């Protein structure tokens, strides 16, 4: 689709403006949209604004978490950061709030899909969860969203049950 304003470039910004009963669709290229004040500038300042709001509490929370020590192996998050190695399996739970974003960054994912050991700590539940996640991934890949939603609910239910126990 062509940009409505410059009529040259590909339109990549699409919006619908509603005033009263009037509905107007607008299609612009990135440059014209910026000129129009629709893109980026406004978003960036909003993001900055939000960042300013949450920065302080986040840093405080981080500082508190960074001082946490694993009761099992004694490692602190700062020590982990300097060595890049955990001291024991419990660290994954103790520092879970800090690890989730780290895993997201490293792997682009936060949930295991794949093999489950023959002797599973946490028994059948863990095995069931891993299977459900694999099915969910396949369903999403195949664009079977209804099935995916059902699987997602089932996973949440099991995970919820685990937290409660």
């Amino acid at each position, binding site marked *: 689709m062509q940009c409505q304003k410059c009529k040259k470039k590909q339109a990549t910004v699409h919006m619908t403006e509603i005033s009263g009963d009037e509905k107007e669709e607008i299609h612009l290229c990135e440059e014209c949209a910026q000129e129009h004040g629709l893109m980026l500038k406004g978003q960036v300042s909003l993001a900055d604004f939000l960042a300013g709001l949450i920065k302080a509490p986040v840093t405080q929370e981080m500082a508190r978490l960074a001082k946490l020590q694993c009761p099992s192996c004694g490692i602190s998050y700062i020590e982990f950061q300097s060595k890049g190695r955990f001291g024991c399996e419990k660290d994954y739970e103790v520092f879970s709030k800090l690890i989730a974003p780290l895993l997201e960054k490293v792997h682009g994912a936060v949930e295991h899909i794949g*093999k489950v050991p023959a002797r599973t700590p946490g028994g059948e539940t863990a095995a069931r969860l891993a299977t459900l996640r694999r099915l969910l991934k396949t369903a999403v890949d195949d664009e079977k969203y209804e099935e995916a939603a059902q699987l997602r609910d089932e996973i949440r239910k099991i995970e919820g049950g685990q937290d409660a126990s």
Partner: protein
Amino acid sequence: MLLDDFRTTTGEWLKGDGPDSDIVVSSRIRLARNLAGRRFQVRATPEELAEIEHEVGGYLREREGRFGRLYYRLSDLGEVDRFVLVERHLISREHAAGDSFRAVAASDDERLSVMINEEDHLRMQVLRSGLRLADAWREIDELDTKLSGTFEFAFHPKWGFLTACPTNVGTGIRVSVMLHLPALVLTREIEKVFRAMGKINLAVRGLYGEGTQAYGDLYQISNQTSLGKSEDKIINNIESIVPGVIAYERKARAHVLESNRTQIEDRLWRALGMLKEARLLTSEETMHLLSAVRLGMSVSVLPVIPTQTINELFLLTQPAHLQKLVGRELSPYERDVERAALVRKRLRD
């Protein structure tokens, strides 16, 4: 010095057989596992590490017949012997440099091996000649399943297998394929391969892994992420891109021959001549010349020498193997003399 067996044998992965073995030297899969309820290597006490070595090593030697013969505690080995194991790809440099209660078990053909008390309690690997990832996975999967029925592994329902370094968490898998890419290096197209692999989250490294330059035009392509995709997906991903790299290398080979035939032929024949006649050869020069000869055979410029002979020379001319063969420690200069003598002899036979 121990490990005298290794003087006359080389691992099965150097055979030079298997699909596309003129370009794909080997296929490797490793799995990282830790025992549940035990602290990881960096935090474990010597007693805990000794216990792990005793339990896992004992099981492998006694219950898994194939690991009965090749089992080594690194504390029993001198520096040369440790590096013999590194050069054979049975242990990592980190494992060789580490301290107490580290061990390695390998099957007789060296296809399967398990490092004990490396960064993770267990690092098992399968190493095959040529492009054979599916077979390799079947083998390592079977060993892992067996071990996971005997030992309880550290596993989290959400994060999978828990590892000392979070870059290995999830499946704990690293799949790598070692490729000989001399024509892509010659045409400087290799940079494009690097960039393309980076875009799809695969890593490209030189022969001896992280932090080393690629000697002998040998490159390793491997997955960088281990969480969020199944083992099959990760393996398929690499398996699906390797044929493209192979085709690219073949195209580059045809191109260099077409455009500069005489110059290339001269270069390849010179390489063979040097290897057959030189009196002093450094390790780096040897790799470089062997790479040219390997290329020369595959494009039918040079007479056929079995790929196994060339692959084995890549290994046997490494510093530790050379000292092993001669039977004593050698200065760098003595190594260059012995290396040239060994290469001459092997190529004449």
